[in-house]
């Protein structure tokens, strides 16, 4: 996956200062940013998606500069065509499954109607086994169904890269293994490059064709994953 990230950002709160200094090049289709909570993994993902503006550096995807401080380039998140799977899925609670999946396909100032139909939406409802809950709201769904809706919503626009923020942390143990398999199969089928961030070694085992370790805001190495740190919960 031709993604190059080389960014720096300083965040200040009243109590502390956090320096993010991340530099890596993704070479595999499946890549994992691995590190403890609070290490800056989410911030890195947000910067790639355009939700956080780095102080300096550059982010290049397929030769397309998403961000380049020296050339004054900062593409809006709307223009980057990346998919972002949020940790708690961020499904729109006021819209049903169909409307959530079709959210990005329907431009304009109004939400898609309750029965909004599009071949792509029906394809994803079918592919992810969501047909029976198409009219349900997120509050009525199980954890696994929520994640599938979030995946469908992210993938329906055929993004260039799939970003996943701790995708399995909200699920119980048994479901976690199943959803890992589902995501793995889906990724293989679509052949979409993905970048996953996690503090769970099992995620590394499943998706870590290439692993970058993040610790205290900086990337430690860009090498094959050596082993699981024992202190990580």
């Amino acid at each position, binding site marked *: 996956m031709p993604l190059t990230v080389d960014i720096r950002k300083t965040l200040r709160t009243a109590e502390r200062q956090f320096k993010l200094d991340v530099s890596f090049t993704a070479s595999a289709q499946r890549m994992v940013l691995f590190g403890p909570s609070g290490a800056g993994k989410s911030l890195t993902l947000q910067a790639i998606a355009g939700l956080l503006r780095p102080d300096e550096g550059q982010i290049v995807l397929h030769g397309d500069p998403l961000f380049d401080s020296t050339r004054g380039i900062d593409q809006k998140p*709307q223009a980057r065509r*990346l998919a972002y799977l*949020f940790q708690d899925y*961020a499904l*729109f609670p006021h819209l049903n499954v169909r409307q959530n999946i079709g*959210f990005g396909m329907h431009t*304009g100032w109004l939400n898609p109607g309750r029965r909004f139909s599009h071949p792509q939406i029906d394809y994803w409802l079918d592919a992810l086994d969501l047909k029976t809950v198409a009219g349900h709201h997120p509050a009525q769904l199980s954890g696994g169904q929520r994640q599938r809706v979030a995946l469908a919503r992210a993938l329906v626009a055929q993004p260039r890269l799939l970003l996943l923020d701790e995708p399995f942390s909200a699920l119980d143990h048994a479901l976690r293994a199943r959803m890992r398999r589902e995501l793995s199969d889906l990724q293989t089928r679509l052949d979409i490059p993905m970048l996953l961030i996690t503090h769970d070694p099992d995620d590394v085992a499943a998706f870590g064709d290439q692993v970058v370790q993040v610790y205290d805001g900086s990337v430690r190495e860009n090498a094959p994953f050596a082993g699981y740190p024992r202190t990580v919960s």
Partner: protein
Amino acid sequence: MEQAWIPLLLSLKVAGWATALNIVFGVAAGFGLARWHSGARDLIDSLLTLPLVMPPTVLGYYLLVLLGRRGVFGAWLDRFDIQLVFTWQGAVIASMVVAFPLVLKSARAAFESVDPQLERAARTLGISETAIFFRVTLPLASRGILAGALLAFARALGEFGATLMIAGNLPGRTQTLSVAVYAAVQAGDDSTANFLVLVTSVTCVLILVLAGRLVPQHSLMTSR
């Protein structure tokens, strides 16, 4: 007795207009205050909340100074032959100013309770900022805004002091429900007063019940 319907209808008209205008301005100001991170934010919030604590007659006096024929704004309006003093439109402005903080406070709290993650998700899905406001932020804040609007409507319906100052007590033209109650008592017309008071009470109870069904009671209390 039949004459009692005239002030009731006028009151509903005045409170309705005041609430409609307050929703527009209160939502805009509430959204601005919720999203604008600056040191001046609390100061502006306090200034806009002033009508809630100031005596309505003082507010009415300010409005007279501003909107009267010789007032700063009133003199300008007079050039277009628009007079607000002693008109029902003047009563709308009085009710609007008095009830405005109720919509503002509710709207600000409602916007602040919308999860920013949902707006970020919409951004990554390619939706423009304006569309995000109408498709995500506003719908999720709408219950809180509606509850505030109902309280503001009730407050506008009961407006007395500022209304009397700027619109006066002209039966059939500017005599709203609460002003009519005062006039009836002053005139010793007990049966009219009783009827007006009953109508007012029933209307207010209905509004509070409606507001209570829209949001939990504790958030109504804290949004004041």
